[in-house]
């Protein structure tokens, strides 16, 4: 029994390959049950997003298991080319668990710390639950994965700093103004990025939106969209007195605000700070404006360098997250070991044997003088009783090894024989999963 991950991601395959091997949501039930019918596969989950396609499975044989899953990818999509096969990676056992944890915690994402992947993983798990393709192991693994991802989100700052231009603008505005509640933004020129940045600012508390555009009608339309006010393009410098933030993105070939203009504005504003964002190329705002006190001018390159430094910061936090992942792998693997058949059988045998030895010793000391032969006879009697009693349950356990219900048998055996007394292993007693068909407890 082993956990196996087979899949491909933006790191190993181009979008052309990924789209060929993906499982659209509508096809998921079919794909899940198809894979479930493979002789090797006991439990499985399929995660299919635009950046990665992965299957998480519990297989009987590690070596064959990953090959069979790779075959499944190709056969299901009717592909034969080795290109597709070679773009698939496979992880098994501990590595597989690490991979799943890292994916969910967004450590393997294109943008480290992005939040969507966890939701996508939850959906994938829900699909598998609905199609009854998971059992004790997968249910527990998926729940653990979700809790690990949440733990990393709260204990590290992996998702904290802005990693897109428009969010970086919001982050900077907060560092200058603190609360954005009641602040106002001026849009000079319109463009997708300018509108997006304005939208983020509004979502973060900015109240007033002013729009200046060369064509006044365009300004009015945009102002209406934001519930703001259109101002005359020629009045930009005067109107800046009312704006705390300016997003400039006009196609002007010269500076629309000079240092002199801004010096006047800041004087009239009684030094209340201004944040100027120049995302136009060629630039709209005189770079010397930044020399004025209480004025902060960022052009597109400046914003990009903020984003770059934030990404670096996230990577630093990711190191901390990796430590959490390792710690959590250990807990999960020790649970997994505890439900493994062979060690359980050994543990039951050991326990019975130690009871037999102890009882035998006690009785022999009370029986007085016995001949060697008699002693041997008593010894084999006790052995026979122990073996006969244990025979049926141990055979049943052995047979259950390859069976989806096997792990619940093992769990039951561990509880009945009280094998986990010293270890604080909550796994042996806590029923896992909600409504999974493979569960018997």
């Amino acid at each position: 029994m082993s956990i196996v991950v087979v899949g491909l991601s933006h790191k190993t395959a181009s979008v052309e390959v990924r789209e060929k091997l993906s499982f659209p949501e509508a096809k998921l039930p079919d794909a899940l049950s198809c894979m479930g019918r493979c002789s090797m596969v006991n439990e499985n989950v399929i995660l299919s997003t635009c950046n990665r396609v992965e299957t998480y499975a519990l297989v009987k044989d590690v070596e064959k298991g990953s090959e069979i899953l790779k075959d499944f990818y190709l056969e299901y999509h009717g592909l034969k080319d080795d290109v597709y096969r070679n773009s698939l990676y496979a992880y098994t056992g501990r590595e597989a668990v690490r991979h799943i944890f890292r994916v969910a915690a967004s450590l393997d994402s294109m943008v480290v710390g992005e939040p969507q992947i966890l939701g996508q993983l939850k959906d994938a798990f829900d699909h598998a639950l609905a199609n009854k393709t998971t059992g004790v192991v997968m249910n527990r693994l998926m729940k653990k994965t979700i809790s690990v991802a949440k733990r990393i989100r709260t204990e590290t700052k992996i998702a904290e700093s802005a990693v897109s231009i428009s969010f970086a603008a919001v982050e900077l505005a907060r560092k200058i103004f603190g609360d954005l509640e009641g602040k106002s933004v001026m849009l000079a020129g319109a463009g997708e990025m300018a509108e997006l940045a304005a939208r983020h600012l509004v979502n973060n508390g900015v109240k007033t939106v002013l729009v200046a555009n060369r064509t006044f009608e365009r300004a009015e339309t945009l102002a209406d969209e934001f519930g703001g006010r259109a101002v005359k393009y020629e009045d930009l410098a005067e109107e800046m007195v009312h704006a705390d933030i300016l997003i400039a993105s006009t196609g002007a070939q010269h500076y629309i605000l000079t240092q002199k203009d801004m010096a006047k504005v800041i004087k009239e504003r009684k030094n209340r700070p201004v944040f100027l964002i120049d995302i136009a190329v060629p630039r709209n705002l005189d770079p010397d404006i930044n020399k004025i006190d209480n004025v902060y001018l960022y052009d597109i390159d400046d914003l990009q360098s903020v984003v770059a430094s934030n990404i670096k910061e996230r990577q630093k936090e990711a190191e901390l997250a990796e430590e959490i992942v390792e710690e959590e792998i250990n807990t999960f693997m020790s649970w997994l070991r505890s439900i493994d058949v062979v060690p359980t059988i050994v543990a039951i045998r050991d326990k019975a044997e130690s009871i037999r030895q102890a009882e035998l010793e006690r009785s022999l000391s009370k029986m007085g003088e016995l001949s060697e032969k008699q002693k041997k006879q008593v010894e084999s009697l006790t052995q026979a009783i122990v073996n006969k009693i244990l025979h049926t349950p141990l055979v049943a356990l052995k047979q259950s090894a390859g069976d989806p219900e096997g792990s619940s048998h093992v769990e039951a055996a561990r509880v009945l024989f009280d094998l986990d007394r010293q270890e604080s292993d909550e796994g042996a007693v806590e029923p896992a999963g909600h409504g999974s068909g493979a569960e018997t407890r």
Partner: protein
Amino acid sequence: MNRVLFGITLFFYFLATFHYLLFLINQRESIGKVCQITTIVGFGFHTVSIINQMVSLGRIPLTSIRESLGFFAWAIVLIYLILEYKVKIRVMGAFIIPLAFIAVAVSLTFPIITTPLPAYFSSAWLGIHTTLAFMADASFAIAFGVGIMYLIQERQLKHKKPGAFYRRLPNLDVLDELDYKAIALGFPLLTLAIVTGSIWANSAWGYYWGWEPKEIWSLITWLIYAAYLHARLVGGWRGRKAAYLAVIGFVLVIFTFLGVNLLLPGQHAFK
């Protein structure tokens, strides 16, 4: 007994300083808690030390450099703790608590004065005058720490190289506002200290103002902060220059306090 109490106080302020600096680096909430607890425990011992000193001397312990530096540190921690409770910006401690630690450490290098004090030291005005003066100085110390934070954050934002401090320090607006409030608290205290000082001078020596070095330097300090408040209230003066002024003002405060005492003669030049 008092030496032991001050020693324990110093030890806790050291621990607090260490943890605040650590908190500044790693930002872990668990370290933040240690900062708060060590500061509060240190402050508790400090309070007991001062009360104990007061009881054994039978007067307010503010007549030697050793005593007044200790009280100055106590006032800094008091104001800081209120501030942390109110605005919940713990990282500020990394810029303020070290000042208190240094003040206590330096105070312990000065001798304990046991020679009897002149008769005019027993006036009730002494207690009021000195308490007000050091509370004012402590407010300016807070303004200094906050001003330094402002200047660092402002620099990060102007130079567009968001480094470690950009992430760790609070926004400019809150720093600017706190700087203003600290000075707005310290200024009236300083004004009252100067007024009560003149009243005391008049009752002790028969004149209100003697143009001695401490008085002159206090007046300069007072004028600097008066100019700051005037410019701020009338002209909306704020930002980098205001923060520089808060820093310079505190340097003047320290000079008026220690420099004048140690270097220049006068009635205030107690040791």
